[in-house]
């Protein structure tokens, strides 16, 4: 008997499903099975979020920060230099750093800068002023951006309550802390995220 797929609803549907399911399984089920860093940090020390930081994560999610800010330092020199500190490049992001994130904010679009290593880079006061009015920072905080600060197109988040901004800032200050990468001029580790 000749197998005529085009005459049969069942053969067409089943064929489309089986062929699709090969790729679906290999790209979704297999990766966590062969690469355990996708779901566990193993022996490595990893930050557990506090209640306040978790509230911050919810605000980050509901305000859709991820649509303009990625959280991944790619394995590219340009990323590592740009998002590093003054004296040291930022290390590339690795999968295990994210295992405590119930919501990942890896992101696809950088309308604003990457935030994967932003924790501790700016003081919490800076974040406060920046959330309230992103285009009016130059006078309050000296920075090489000075003149260009007004070019920022970040929306103002002045509608968030003071408590909400504190929660959000607390979360942002944790970003990147799973790798203790910031060092001072003498090469000592700077663990100053709490500022």
């Amino acid at each position: 008997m000749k197998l005529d797929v085009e005459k049969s609803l069942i053969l067409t549907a089943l064929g489309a499903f089986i062929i699709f399911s090969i790729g679906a399984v290999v790209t979704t089920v297999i990766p966590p099975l062969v690469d355990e860093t996708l779901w566990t940090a193993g022996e490595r020390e990893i930050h557990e979020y506090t209640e306040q930081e978790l509230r911050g994560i919810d605000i980050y999610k509901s305000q859709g920060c991820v649509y303009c800010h990625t959280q991944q330092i790619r394995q590219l020199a340009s990323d590592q230099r740009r998002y590093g500190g003054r004296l040291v490049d930022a290390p590339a992001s690795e999968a295990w750093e994210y295992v405590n994130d119930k919501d990942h904010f890896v992101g696809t679009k950088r309308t604003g800068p990457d935030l994967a290593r932003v924790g501790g880079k700016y003081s919490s006061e800076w974040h406060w002023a920046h959330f309230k009015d992103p285009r009016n920072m130059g006078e309050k905080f000296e920075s090489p951006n000075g003149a260009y600060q007004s070019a920022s197109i970040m929306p103002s988040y002045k509608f968030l309550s003071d408590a909400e901004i504190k929660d959000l800032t607390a979360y942002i200050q944790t970003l990147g802390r799973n790798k203790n990468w910031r060092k001072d001029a003498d090469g000592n580790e700077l663990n100053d995220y709490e500022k």
Partner: protein
Amino acid sequence: MKQDTAAKLMIISSVLFFGLALSLGLLAALKFIVPTVGEIEYLSLPRVRMLHTNVNLYAWLLQANMGILFWILPRILHTKLFSEKLGVATGILYNLTLLAGAVCILLGKVQNVEYGELPLGIDLFVIICWVMFSINVFGTVATRKVKYLYVTVWYTLGAVIWTTFVYITGNIITVMPEVTGINQANLSWFFVHNAVGLIFTPMGVAIAYYLIPEQLNTPIYSHKLSMIGFWVISFVYVWTGAHHMIHGPISPWLQTVSIIFSFSLIIPVMAVITNFFGTFANAPRATRMDGPIPKLLMMGTIYYIFTCLQGPFQAIRAVNEITSKTDWVVGHAHMALFGAFSYYAMAGIYYVAPKLTGRKLYSKKLGDLHFWIMTIASIPFFAVLWISGVIQGFAWLNPENTFVQTLAALKHAHVMRFITGIGISAGYMLFLYNVLQTFFGKYADEVDVETISE
């Protein structure tokens, strides 16, 4: 219930939602130029963006495609729609679900999945609607009066089956508490990419496979190419999700797999496109230029080539280093969903609307004008996004440029994007007027009904 009520309901509501989606796009574009516009929580840039993508994807494009297929399927299968009542119920429930979903997004009650922001409760209703749609599709195919299944039916069946799994993975499995971090990112990009590739591509291509030969009155160029296109795409497309994380924190082998398969997409896409162009080439010249429908189909196909050539190349690591995370990607996504598949959907609506009302299209000339305005505005719209993407990508390479400096360099591109966006919206207004006139306007009736022969 009257034949084709479901198609009519879904097509009219999708056309209205298209206007909402375009307005949201314009508002977002305006916020890129003047960030202080509409500075309230519900209209902050990310919320507008979420609503813009969701209204476009689900309320406009998917709904339009479902409506058009509700009309097309019975015609190719020479039977009645399996259940008109079920179809109408699908349409009503789907619209109510999406309106509720839009409110959730404005209030910030969202899931953290790009393109899947609608919260879990809404997702469940979307799935119910999808199951209702699937029952109608399978039922109509099962009760058909012809032996062979035409290409349109293959793609529709494929879309129905694949979408079920893709949607559930993206909207239910990714938000389970066990799924965290990069594992979740992998699943959500499986969803993001396949939402475009295995929902909108097969439905759009299904519609084009019906409309091109019907409108041009020419048989499809090659049956073999149809088969190659369908079976290769159903194998190849699903592997590519991880190309959103090239150079990123996911297993390098998975990145390489996604790159290889992204590149392989050239095969099915070229098969489909050769088939469409072959049909165009064989058609008599008069039919190729007759009114807006063949023009929209042709331009949609051209945009389909562009977007599907970009895709494979921008997945290559060296190219990705520059284009990824920039406006380039935004241009690419608009090219696929607006350029290719919205053009097919608009062609489908121009084709089906007159048949639904039993008279000719209100105005072919207005349709042509709509096509030209939209096309002339959309070419620079896409181009400016690519150009600004490349500028941005190279500007980021130089560590001397601060981030806001690289942003300041894009000001002209953002202004241009807004202006061309206005052009696209102007084209849409003509489309809306033409379609609404065809459905509800008063003008000389001419009988042009295509009844189903049983």
